[in-house]
């Protein structure tokens, strides 16, 4: 099966044609450099994304504290992860980079604050 995707490694945005068999990439065309092939393989076989959101606070100076996953997580888990993010009520001060939930959803990444909140 041929899948058409856009490479986002650089602003050129090559339109890739990816030959996929059984969920695995067998051939990539349309890429102007080798990054395209690596991107296509990752994107088809296991697409990953950094999740960013904001969580509600209680008793802090700002109402919402922005958060992100410390590393990308599988794209397919984004909406499930959001269900967990929405349950958080942050009631203690945090610093930029401080872990809010370690090993978030057992994915081996932490949910961290991206802003100081006192």
């Amino acid at each position, binding site marked *: 099966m041929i899948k058409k995707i856009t490479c*986002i490694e650089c602003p050129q945005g090559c339109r890739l044609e990816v030959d996929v068999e059984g969920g695995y990439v067998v051939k990539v065309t349309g890429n102007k450099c080798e990054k395209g092939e690596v991107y296509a393989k990752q994107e088809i076989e296991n*697409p990953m*994304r950094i*999740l960013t*959101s904001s969580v509600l606070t209680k008793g802090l100076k700002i*109402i919402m504290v922005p958060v992100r996953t410390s590393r990308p997580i599988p794209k397919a888990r984004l909406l499930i992860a*959001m269900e967990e993010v929405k349950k958080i009520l942050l009631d203690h001060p945090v610093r*930029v980079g401080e872990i809010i939930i370690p090993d978030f959803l057992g994915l081996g990444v932490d949910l961290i604050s*991206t*802003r100081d909140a006192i």
Partner: protein
Amino acid sequence: MDKRDLVVVGAGPAGMAAAISAYESGVKDILLLERDQYLGGILNQCIHPGFGLHHFKEDLTGPEYADRFMKKIQTLPEIEISLRSFAVNLTREKVLIYLRPGEMKEIKAKALIMATGCRERTREMVHIPGARPAGIYPAGLAQKMINIEGWLPGKEMVIVGSGDIGLIMARRFTLEGAKVKAVVEIQKETRGLIRNVVQCLEDFDIPLYFRHQISKIYGKDRVEKVEVTAVDTGTKFELTCDTVLISVGLIPENELIEMAGVEIAGEINRTSLPGLFVCGNSYKVYDLVDWVTRDSARAGEMAAAYLRDLG
């Protein structure tokens, strides 16, 4: 009247970079005015990643990018920060009036850097016919509501314009559980980054209609639906929704400079008045904050050179 060597108006990425660079270039008496109650400007609501790839060689979110500069400024006592301070008047004599809680201050500056950012183009500027119900927001305002205030402005959205803010908001609303029905773009291609089309729309199967426009907004008290028209064929269809987000570009904010009767010059960061500089999105609208930082640092150097020449 207070006197200062340098006053910087606005403490977003442009104002912070300008103030730090002016300090590093030898200016030791700097007042940094910010209308909000914290430093960082618009970066505070841009919680998505993609910032700093050039300047820091790292992929940061907006608040993380701002934090680097905030931490630096807080170590420099020569830069006095005045929060909740809203500049309301500027003259050719470089007298600036600003309001802050409980007082109106007048200040005479030897040099000034305006870093007042940009504002969103509104529905009125793109002429969308129809009713005027609640539920029509500029995309950046909706971003502030959701990321700073913690409100979800609607449940079913249509987004006008495929600029980066509109694309980012399509993903943000989807993650928060709202349904984004479509992004409607009058041009043949997106004005946003390809990365954002892929990761904000394609990831969530959100339709993007090129060469289409919203031809009418319906709704009595609240938006109920919109009519979408194909520009080339005239074909129409309707989408039910309770919210319309407008993401149709940004305009540099230069009201104070105009008030002083000064014009922006052709050369970067300069105005027609020596000693009055303008940087960041108030000079021109940038795609990337990294370039705002780079060029605004230059404004700080230019102000320092001007002050040195004054003696």
